[in-house]
């Protein structure tokens, strides 16, 4: 019997498994990637198949400024996480707020673009295939940004109440994974819609 257990009790001490939050979030990201893939495939498949106008070339403008906003928010959330790990709560709070502001700015950009497309160009989700696929794909991404902003804001509230400390940094890391994913998806959507799609 001792033969069975003795070598293991030592190993027991160094038994270490990955953090469940990170693994769970990775699972969610894989699932979400599959959803986005299907929408991207639909967008590419229907490129140029609209029977009526307007076409992407006629109406789309590349949102470079807002893209820069969203992508730089990945940097600020990463730095915020690092600051929290080192116990700098104040800088964490500032960087976290900047992240939220950048995300919100990006959403504002999408809103501006949609307003222009709908009211000036007359492109809605039911106008043609381009409208259907464009609003679905960009809208799906914007939904994810919105969900992310809600979660980030919850953390902000807790942080303002001084409840976010070093011991939460693993959770903050999990949330950052989601935010990085949302940014990475935007790179794909941006490439597909604004570069390839025109």
């Amino acid at each position, binding site marked *: 019997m001792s033969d069975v257990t003795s070598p293991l009790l030592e190993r027991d001490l160094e038994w270490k*498994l990955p953090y469940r939050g990170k693994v769970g979030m990775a699972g969610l990201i894989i699932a979400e990637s599959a959803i986005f893939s299907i929408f991207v495939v639909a967008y590419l*498949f229907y490129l140029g198949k*609209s029977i009526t106008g307007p076409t992407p070339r006629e109406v789309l403008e590349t949102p470079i400024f807002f893209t820069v906003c969203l992508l730089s928010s990945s940097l600020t959330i990463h730095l915020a996480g690092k600051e929290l790990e080192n116990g700098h709560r104040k800088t964490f709070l500032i960087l976290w707020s900047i992240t939220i502001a950048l995300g919100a700015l990006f959403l504002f950009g999408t809103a501006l673009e949609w307003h222009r497309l709908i009211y000036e160009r007359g492109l809605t989700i039911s106008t043609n295939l381009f409208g*259907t696929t464009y609003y679905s794909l960009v809208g799906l991404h914007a939904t994810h940004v919105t969900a992310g902003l809600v979660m980030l804001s919850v953390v902000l509230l807790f942080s303002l109440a001084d409840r976010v400390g070093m011991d939460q940094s693993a959770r903050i890391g999990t949330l950052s994974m989601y935010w990085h994913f949302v940014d990475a998806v935007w790179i794909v959507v941006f490439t597909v819609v604004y570069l390839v799609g025109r």
Partner: protein
Amino acid sequence: MSSDAIAIPSARTEARPWVEVVHEWVTTVDHKRLGILYIVYALAFLVVGGIEATIIRIQLIRPHNDFVSPQVFNRMFTMHGTTMIFFVAMPVLFGFANYLVPLMIGARDMAFPRLNAFSFWLTALGGLLLYFSFLGGNGLYGAGNAPDVGWWAYAPLTAKTFSPGPSSDYWTIALLVSGFGSIGTAINLVATILCLRCPGMTLNRMPLLAWLNLVMSGMVLIAITPLSAAQIMLLIDRYLGGHFFDTQAGGSATIWMHFFWIFGHPEVYILIIPCFAFMSEIIPVFSRKPIFGYPVMVGATVCIAFVSLSVWAHHIFTIGMNSYANSFFAITTMAVGVPTGIKIFNWIGTMWGGSIQFKTAMLFSVGFLFQFLIAGLTGIMMASAPFDWQLSLSYFVVAHFHYVIVGGILFALFGAFYYWYPKMTGRMLSERLGKLHFWLFFLGFHATFDVMHFAGILGMPRRIYTYEPRPGWETLNLIVTIGAFIQGVAILVFVTNLVYSYFKGPKAGNDPWDAWTLEWSVSSPPPAYNFASIPVVASRRPLWDLKHPEDPDSRYE
């Protein structure tokens, strides 16, 4: 393996008000209770789906029958398919995974217990929504109630023009909601298996059930989500005036087929892989030998998962793809047979030279091996595109996939019920009723589904409401329907056994089968916390090591 993980007496429960008991079950986050909820929920829907199948078969018992109207017939086969796949097979397999995985890897619960409860209730809501359509579907004058578009719901049948009223939307939203539930459970299983294994349980020592459920969960993440995406597109089409599947605006009906089957084919493997997992636990115990070729089993499973993601278009050979696509999908489909064959050889290798005990669980396992092999062989036949052109959309296909789902999945599930019921309830199922159940079901199954192959080869198309009195068709359909009734009787025997044994069955004890995995080290049913102290394992068969300290497996690993 610490010995204090053994023999925890089950806590005495006193009679409590039923409201309290119900409240406890509704608010539970315990993986065992949620597992049982999943299983009971699925069994209820099994009965409902079975009744729908019976209605279909009564309608087809003779030519020119008018037991139900054509409209009702369409609803019956749609609801039968949808129910059996999404609200029987998926939840029952998730139920077993929920119940067994934490126990087998020496954990106290799943990684995210509340997500687990949330996923179950999403699935439950999905099933209720689907069936609420019978009441709430009559939205417009002339609109039908329950969904009647077939379980594939091909475009343009789902367009507003052809499916007025909300019946198709109940189908869409039910599947979307329960799909989110499945994704939640899959994330939970992956996190549990990767993060909560007890000390010493390396990936290499995990029970095959845990391994195979890990692979299944990974497939759920990749394969259920395309269906969710397609459902979102369908909702956009139906409610926001989108054109994804609207051919008049340049949209494509075939892209729905592709999206559906990108989900649909891996789904078959999502359902069968947990059944492979049951086989890999049951066959060794009743052959009194460790599983043959453990690493190869794991490798073959991963291989099946990968290859099965690239075979979907064999469902739609008849829509006219180019010859390159046809060849590609024919080859990948045949290739999937190779790792599957390896598994069958491994199970036979496990039985070979063992002292086999033909308990009911083992009978069902052997039935599974035999029938799943035949199902695989007809699958290889259909993989050949020209052969498929001839027999696609005929009863041959119906016979083939029911051979997989009933002959394979359901037989494996019954095996699992007979094997783990003692652990879940603390009582043994009656062997006498079990054997009766097996032989009746075996007889009914073969009467129904063997004969369907012939009807298909004679040219009988699937989903027809009735048929002309053609030579051969009448007798064949009569036998098929009689077989369906025999299966129905067998299910009644099974349900009787479940209920009777729950109250009157002999006490099971911790380890009635003299098995080797960790769930048998705790009491039956296990306490809420599973393990008083977290076990430490040194081999793939921790209980063997404990029972045979003079010759533990760990010595050979």
